[in-house]
């Protein structure tokens, strides 16, 4: 365990070096956030029936999404890892006295956390002080806030577990860009990053709630605004844990199968 912890820390420090990239990222996130809010504002201004999510709730959703984007997006890509697979350098990693699944998992987790650590607080603070229609509202009570933190962290573990599956699929396809594109586009839509899930038609919602993607982004953001009440949130957190356990087991199993068939060409 200590070993994985130090891999994690090394990666974290490494990621924190890229400050100017983070600054550019923040500016970009703000721009996207404003555009999204204006579009929804226009939609809401002439809505015929009461939409299932109020505008302030939606705006909180958008700002949280922008602030924690790096934690929850599926298409964050560590080309180092997929290069290991395609170039055969994975042989080195296999020689290490550590489980490769946990080793990579720690790396990916640290990459996400270091990216988010630099970006999230400026976005959260500024959006908290914006003038009225654009403001990020505070959560209804402190209990909801703590539930949000727990569900966000579980969502982070969940999305990292899903992205591990993508890397494992590279063993089979050997073409990282193809795998990533497919997963990323689908995952983005399924986790409510393009359109928040409550605004989608009923039949689609039913499907999405049955998939794990909804728990990575949509669920914590709605817990924050109180759109999902505390009692439901507790149940949801339980389901998050179940999904996490399932994805861990499946991921480790697939990894061990992939590693059994692996052939590293010399070089």
């Amino acid at each position, binding site marked *: 365990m200590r070993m994985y912890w130090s891999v994690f820390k090394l990666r974290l420090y490494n990621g924190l070096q890229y400050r100017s*990239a983070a600054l550019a990222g923040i500016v*970009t996130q703000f721009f996207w956030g404003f*555009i999204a809010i204006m579009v929804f504002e226009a*939609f809401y201004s002439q809505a015929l029936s009461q939409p299932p999510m109020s505008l302030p709730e939606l705006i909180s959703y958008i700002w949280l999404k922008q602030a924690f984007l790096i934690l929850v997006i599926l298409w964050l890509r560590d080309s180092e890892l997929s290069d290991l697979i395609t170039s055969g350098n994975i042989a080195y990693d296999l020689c290490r006295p550590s489980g490769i699944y946990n080793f990579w998992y720690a790396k990916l987790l640290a990459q996400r956390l270091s990216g988010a650590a630099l970006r999230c607080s400026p976005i959260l603070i500024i959006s908290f002080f914006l003038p009225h229609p654009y403001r990020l509202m505070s959560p209804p009570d402190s209990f909801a806030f703590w539930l949000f933190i727990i569900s966000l962290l579980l969502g982070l573990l969940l999305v990292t577990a899903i992205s591990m599956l993508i890397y494992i699929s590279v063993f089979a396809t050997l073409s990282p860009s193809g795998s990533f594109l497919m997963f990323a*586009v689908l995952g983005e*839509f399924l986790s409510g990053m*393009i359109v928040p899930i409550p605004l989608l*038609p009923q039949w689609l919602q039913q499907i999405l709630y049955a998939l794990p993607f909804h728990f990575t982004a949509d669920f914590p953001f709605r817990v924050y605004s109180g759109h999902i009440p505390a009692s439901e949130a507790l149940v949801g957190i339980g389901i998050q844990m179940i999904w996490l356990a399932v994805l861990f087991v499946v991921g480790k199993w697939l990894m061990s199968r992939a590693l059994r068939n692996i052939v590293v060409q010399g070089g």
Partner: protein
Amino acid sequence: MRLYWKYVWILFKSQMQYRASFWLLTLGQCLTPLAVFAGLYFLFERFGQIRGWSFPEVAVCFAVIHTAFAITECFARGFDLFSTMVGQGEFDRVLVRPRGTILQVLGSKFEFARAGRLLQSLLVLFFALSSLTIEWTPLKTVTLILMISCGVFIFTGIFILAATFCFWTIQGLEVVHILTDGGKEMAQYPLNIYQKWVARFFTFVIPFGCINYLPLMYILDKTEGNGILYMLAPTAGIIFLLPCLLVWNIGVRHYRSTGS
């Protein structure tokens, strides 16, 4: 010009060497805007309209901007990836050749896999236009062609501008994505749904509004007064390209090789 097509043909042959990966990428490229478009569709299913614009009308907006973007990404990819060219000192080679720099950078990359996106955007365009009842006149057809081609000019201008910054920074600038990806994202809705200052900025500084919102009003007969002005609005894209080319030439003169 003959030289440019020769460049393109060589790149096409080289990309076709990896056929499976090529088709996968093409398919994947097709999916990305499709997911965004699906999102758009579901929003309209929930809300019905946006500030008086119906779904097919917004779909035309969406399709025009995405078509223009896809075409630009196909052939101006060299400018998009220009930072690596400068970073590795490859631009030196371009400078010693007896041809224009712009032609050579344009010809250095050509991404055929983006054709997937183009196809998807064109399908949306046909779908949207066929579900609208428009009285087509020759002038309107010309306007539509102007809209797309001038959109290509604007995106190319931005790519060139972004590439010019690389002469000074060596690295690519992520902020530029606000103008390319962000502009594309924003201009897929009619500009009048945004706040005044946003609409003004994207009409007069970077004329995205001139290539879909204004001429689209002409095509849909929503204009008041003189239609010709609306019809000719896309030409702002050509005007936008000129200073970009100028800045590029200044940049080339300031170029200092990174060596290696």
